[in-house]
């Protein structure tokens, strides 16, 4: 795709699916736009989605708030894949409430008063609500600097989003495993929230870190 000396990183109309994003990587320091962080994260994920540490390690000069914010955006974006898969299987008739283990029922915070939404509604509402919040001009007006007051919002978004993982793990195991093997998303998310202390450890109920090898074995079988 190199045109003379200039590499144009574009997915032009007519690009085949396999050629999408198939351009050479750009070093972080050379990136020159306001969406640098997103570009960088997506690039590292494309290289290897299993390489969690590389993906989550911020470059040195990067502001941590922005780094967390952009990662959360990426997580919410990729979670759409899980939501789509769940959409087929997770019916309001079978999963009438958003639960993971037997202990807790999660109420959907997207309504004026927290409501007991069926699982699929919870998933959709949480993702939509996260999209609204993360894109709202009030809390996150800029993509290159994050207000101190808004950093706390990231924690609450993480908590709600995590429940989608836990519900899928406990109630729709097969879907979860397929998705995880494709994207390693839950594992990356768990490492992300522990690294940046966005959630308390008790809430991390999906035994992803120890369970990883077992999960792999299952999906291959």
């Amino acid at each position, binding site marked *: *795709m190199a*045109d*003379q000396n200039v590499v*144009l*990183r*574009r*997915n*032009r*109309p*007519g*690009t*085949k*699916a396999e050629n*999408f994003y198939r*351009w050479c990587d750009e070093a972080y320091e050379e990136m020159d*736009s*306001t*969406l640098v962080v*997103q*570009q960088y994260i997506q690039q590292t994920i494309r290289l290897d989605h299993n390489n969690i540490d590389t993906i989550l390690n911020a470059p040195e000069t990067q502001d941590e708030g922005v780094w967390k914010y952009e990662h959360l*955006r*990426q997580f*919410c*974006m990729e979670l*759409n*894949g899980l*939501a*789509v898969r769940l*959409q087929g299987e997770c019916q*309001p008739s079978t999963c009438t409430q958003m639960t993971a283990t037997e202990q807790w029922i999660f109420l*959907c915070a*997207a*309504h004026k008063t927290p409501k007991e*939404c*069926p699982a*699929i*509604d919870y998933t*959709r*509402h949480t*993702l*939509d*609500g996260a*999209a*609204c919040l*993360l*894109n*709202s*001009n*009030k809390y996150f*007006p*800029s*993509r*290159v600097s994050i207000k101190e007051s808004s950093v706390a919002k990231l924690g609450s978004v993480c908590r709600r989003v995590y429940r989608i993982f836990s519900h899928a793990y406990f109630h729709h195991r097969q879907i979860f495993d397929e998705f995880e093997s494709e994207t390693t998303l839950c594992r990356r998310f768990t490492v992300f929230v522990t690294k940046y202390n966005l959630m308390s450890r008790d809430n991390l109920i999906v035994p992803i870190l120890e369970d990883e090898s077992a999960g792999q074995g299952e999906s291959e079988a």
Partner: protein
Amino acid sequence: MDEASSQNQLGGSANPAGVANRQNLEEPSQRIQYSIPGILHFIQHEWARFEMERSQWELERAELQAKIAFLNGERKGQENLKNDLVRRIKMLEYALKQERAKYHKLKYGTDLVQGDMNPPVEEGGEEVRVDPDAILSTNTNVSWKQSRHLLRQYLQEIGYTDTIIDLRSNRVRSLLGIDGGGNEENHNSTPAMNGSDTTKRMPDANRWNVTKKTPSCLEAQIQDAERAVIDNFEFLRSEGMEMDDDDEDDEPEEEDDVHRLKSPKVPKVALDVDDVDGESVDLDPDFRFLPDVEDSSPGVLGFGPGSRRVYGPGGEEDALEGLGELAQLTVTNEADATYDQISSTKENFRKTWTAKYTLRSHFDGVRALCFHPQEPTLITASEDATLKLWNLQKTVPAKKSASLDVEPVYTFRGHLGPVLCLAMSGDGDKCYSGGIDGTIRIWNIPSSNIDPYDSYDPCVVGGSLPGHTDAVWGLTYHGQRQHLLSCAADSTVRLWSTDARSPLLYTYAVEKDGIPTSVDFVYESSNQFVCSFNTANCVIFDLETGKPVTRLDTETEQGSSSISRQINRVVSHPTLPLTITGHEDRHIRFWDNNSGRLVQSMVAHLDSVTSLAVDPNGLYLLSGSHDCSIRLWQLDSKQCVQEITAHRKKFDESIFDVAFHPSKPFIASAGADALAKVFV
């Protein structure tokens, strides 16, 4: 203190009342009982009365002062007038003397002895002219007439009609007691008065405004017109725009103001935005000097500044979001100043588009968007694999920026990868989206008034149209035929019907022309579609047979490399046999459908043209490009009437799609920065 004084008065007024039985005072029924509340009440009452009278006096004083100022102004004007007339008289006298001398010489062969043959112009002018701030002191007649004429034109354009000018001239005439005979002079002098009024704006701006404001001397009809003029000027002045221009810059600057006045809506919006962010106000002086650089004739400039005006809001958005953008903003402008394509027409009425709504909710670039045929709603498709439905009437109250934020009403989840293209059915009930996974999905669009956090309704998912094996890049829907046309990276173009039983009607294999990048139905004829390829080919095919009907003559264009020859988008004109293509090499080209020949080619942008849209009436063309700008073109003159800077770059991509609303005055743009913007 007050009590003491009013007590005295009380005592004074109480005395006559105190005398028994003198009940013919103000309140006969009230026995004067000196109770504290009564006293207090009386004091308050008097105090209020005094205050009222005082305020009345202040008002009167202000009024009288205004009147004085006005009369002063009038007097000054009259004096100037008188001076001009006196000068004129002197000139005429001098001319007369010269004539006499000539006559005498001719008649008698000798010189007539006259005193005082010196042309009195300069000295007389100096002597008589007491007023030091008259600028037109040394004008000769010719240039004076020219500038007078020009000023007349300006006045006409701002609506200061001839009737007003005539009225004033009549007034002056009556003041001077001249009629009929001195008509010429008066006619000359009244524009002079107007002229002197307007050219002396700097020192006399205040005076002039005050002059206009007091209605006492003006007749009712003029009032309204003048008030309108004042309002325009007032608001211009109050916004801090400089009215006191140098005479040399007078022409182009005048055109600025004048043209802005013609469309008051635009400056109000733009300048309101300026109030919010001081940075864009600083940009203004820069912009205003750009016309001077390339000024050829006043008429051409008309919307150069007008278009730059729009950078206000566009720049606003970005200034709020990232500082780097502002630098980029000025760079783009500089480049545009030297850009030939930006010229204007000389129409008086022009609508300029300004950003109104910002649609934020996607996580990744918005690849396509589509308006609903009737309602003010639109659907966007994004690389984050979702489509979102937006209702423009449901905005989020945002105080910061002038543009309103909108939140989505519904999110369509179903694709497993970026969604690349979108088409809406003719009635707005269904929409079709094509993605990188090769599927075309049908969605039943829910009402735009639903609660975004409603329960999930699986009926929204309307199924999918399988068939393509690679990324679907182009989708277009034909309202009358109710057919959908799609093109994909697997080098096929497929025709689908909305009939659920056997949707796929036809598959056109077009690999020999390359990989199709975009398709459109040819609206002018009934049975054709046009398809553009990444190899710079563009072919019109017959829908029934799949055979090429016309091959648009793209071979004659010099292509540098294969990529730069790619055609990104093709649209067909709704009524004319015209096809318009947007190219990777920054051009937009117009082709005749019948002959296949190039009608016109123009360099439209600074980077590749990514999207095109024709307005429903077929008069305008919108183009979006990776240079972060969208441009509005008039189709008959092929001239750019507006440029809007919008969206930021991600990697090297900026704007993916643009669209017109089929029935309402909206245009929208979709960007790689995950935003969609709607302009009104």
